[in-house]
C-alpha cells in the first residue's frame, strides 16, 4: 500500500552521479532550483528539462521510476494548474458557464506546471542518488561555518538523518498495522470525513507506541556507544572532493551561464 511512495527514497545503483560528493549535489540542486525561478521563459524550461534528462541518463535511474515518483504530487500539480488557469485575468479564449479561460491563464498554468514538475524532479534526483547519511553529512559540512554563530549544526544534521532513516521504517510499520486492523474488520475507506478520521485511531495509537519504543531503543543504543554530541567526533569516511566534483562544478557554472544567456536574449 504505502510502499508505492517513491518520493525522495534512495535508489541503489552504480553511476557517476551516485559517486559525486553530496556537497556537490546539494549545491547543484540549489543552483538548479534557482535557475528555474530566474526567468519565465519557455526556452529556459526546455533547456532545464534537457539538463535534467541528461542527469537522469547519467544516474541510470529508470525514467519510469522517476515518473512514478511524481504520483503523490500529481494532485497538487493539477490543482495549481487549474487555479492559475481560472483566475488569471486577460484576453478571453473561451467561456464555460461563468468561468473565463484566458490566454494569459493558460500560459501561466503551463509555466507553473513546468516549473513545479522540474522543481520536484530536480530535488528528487538528489535524494534518489544520495543516501540519507551522505546527504546529512554533506549538509553538516556545508553548514559548518554557521557553528561560529553558535548554531548546533551537528545536532541538526543528526536529527535530520535520524528522521530520514525512520521514514521507511515507520512506513512499513504503518502498512503492517493497517493490514492487521483490516484483518480485524477495520474500514479505512467508507464513511464521511469524521468517520474516516476516527477509523485511523486504531492505526495511530499502535504507530505512536512503536515510534516511542524505537526512539527509546535508539537513544539507549547511542548512549551505549558513548555518543555525546558532535564535539571531537571523527568520521570513518570523511567527505573529500575528487576530480569528478570539480568537473561537476564546471558543468554547473556552464549551465547557469547558459540559462542566464537564454533567459536574457531569447
Amino acid at each position, binding site marked *: 500500500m504505502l*510502499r508505492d511512495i*517513491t518520493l525522495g527514497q534512495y*535508489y*541503489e*545503483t552504480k553511476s557517476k552521479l551516485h559517486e559525486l560528493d553530496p556537497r556537490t549535489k546539494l549545491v547543484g540542486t540549489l543552483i538548479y532550483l534557482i535557475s528555474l525561478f530566474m526567468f519565465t521563459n519557455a526556452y529556459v524550461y526546455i533547456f532545464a528539462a534537457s539538463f535534467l534528462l541528461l542527469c537522469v541518463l547519467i544516474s541510470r535511474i*529508470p525514467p*519510469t*521510476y522517476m515518473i*512514478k515518483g511524481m504520483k503523490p504530487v500529481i494532485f497538487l500539480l493539477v490543482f495549481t494548474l487549474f487555479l492559475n488557469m481560472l483566475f488569471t485575468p486577460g484576453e478571453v479564449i473561451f467561456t464555460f458557464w461563468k468561468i473565463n479561460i484566458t490566454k494569459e491563464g493558460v500560459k501561466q498554468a503551463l509555466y507553473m506546471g513546468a516549473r513545479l514538475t522540474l522543481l520536484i524532479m530536480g530535488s528528487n534526483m538528489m535524494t534518489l542518488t544520495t543516501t540519507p547519511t551522505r546527504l546529512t553529512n554533506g549538509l553538516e559540512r556545508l553548514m559548518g561555518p554557521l557553528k561560529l554563530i553558535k548554531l548546533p549544526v551537528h545536532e541538526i544534521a543528526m536529527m535530520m538523518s535520524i528522521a530520514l532513516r525512520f521514514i521507511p521504517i515507520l512506513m512499513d510499520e504503518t502498512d*503492517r*498495522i493497517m*493490514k*492487521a*486492523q*483490516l*484483518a*480485524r*474488520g*477495520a*474500514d479505512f475507506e467508507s464513511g464521511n470525513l469524521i468517520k474516516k478520521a476516527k477509523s485511523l*485511531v*486504531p492505526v495511530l*495509537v*499502535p504507530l505512536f*507506541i*512503536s515510534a516511542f519504543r524505537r526512539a527509546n531503543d535508539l537513544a539507549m543504543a547511542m548512549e551505549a556507544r558513548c555518543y555525546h554530541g558532535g564535539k571531537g567526533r571523527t568520521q570513518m569516511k570523511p567527505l573529500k572532493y575528487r576530480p569528478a566534483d570539480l568537473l561537476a562544478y564546471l558543468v554547473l557554472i556552464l549551465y547557469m551561464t547558459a540559462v542566464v544567456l537564454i533567459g536574457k536574449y531569447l
Partner: protein
Amino acid sequence: MERDKSKLKLAADHISYEYDKSGANRHKALDDVSFEVYEGEFVGLIGHTGSGKSTLMQHLNALLKPDQGTIWYDGQDIYEKGYDRKELRRRVGLVFQYPEHQLFEDTVFNEVCFGPKNFGMDEKQSELSAYAAIKKVGLPDECFYHSPFDLSGGQKRRVAIASVLAVKPEILIMDEPTAGLDPKGREELMEMILSLKESEGLSIVMVSHSMEDVAKLADRIVVMDKGHIVYDDEPRKVFAHYKELEEMGLAAPQMMYVMQDLKDAGFDVRTDVTTIEEAKEEILRIVT
C-alpha cells in the same frame, strides 16, 4: 495424501506475487504457488525467513492481490466483482506476527470487542462473543478491565488471538504465534492452540520456524523455499527429507536426529519419529 474434496475450504490457485514491481529491489515472493486448506485440519507452514510464507498468508484473506492466479473460498473466486471481501476477512481470521503491536484500546475487553463491532455485530452480541473468546484463550478474569499494555508478552499475544477469535472465523491463520516468547509462555500458548483445535473444529494454519511445535500439532506440513512450495505432506513424510530441509536452512525435529544416531550406533529403531513421546515409546520398545 488423499483427501475428501468436499471438505476443501480455501485454495490458492497458482498464485504469483512480486514486491516493488518497478523499484530497485524487485523480487518475486511467490512463484506459481498452489495451496489448500481443508475443514478442521491443522496445517503447519514452515520456511526460512524470506521464503514467502508471510506473503502467502496475506493472500489468503485478500490483504494482498496476486499478480497471477486467484484464491478460492468455499468454491467462490474471491477476486470476482462484488465478492464481499470484508466477510471473507471475518471467516479467515489472520493473526500477525507480534500481534501485541496492534493493540490500541484502553481495556482488554474493548480491544477484543473491536473485531466483532467492525463486522457488524450489535453491542450485546459483540460483548458475548468477546467474553467467550477471552475465556477460550485462557486469560484470567481480573484481566478484563486492565489496559492491554500492562500485560505480559504472552498475555498480550492471547488478547490479540482472542480479538480474532471473537469474530468467529472458520479458518484461523497465525504467523509465528510463539515468536519472542519465553519457553514457558511458548509452552502455554501451544497448549492453548492445541485446545482450540480440539474444541472448536477450526481449520488452523500456523506459520512457524519451530519444527518441534509444528511436528507436535500439525496434520500436514507445507514447506516453502524461495517462493515455491517444496513439500506438502504428512509431518513424518516431510521430515524424512531432513537432508534437503537442512539445505534450505531448516531442520527436522531433534528427535529424528537422536533416532538416526541410535540407528547408526547399531540399534534397530524407526527413524520416522517426530515427537518426544513417540521417541520414548520407540526407545522403550528396543530396551525391553
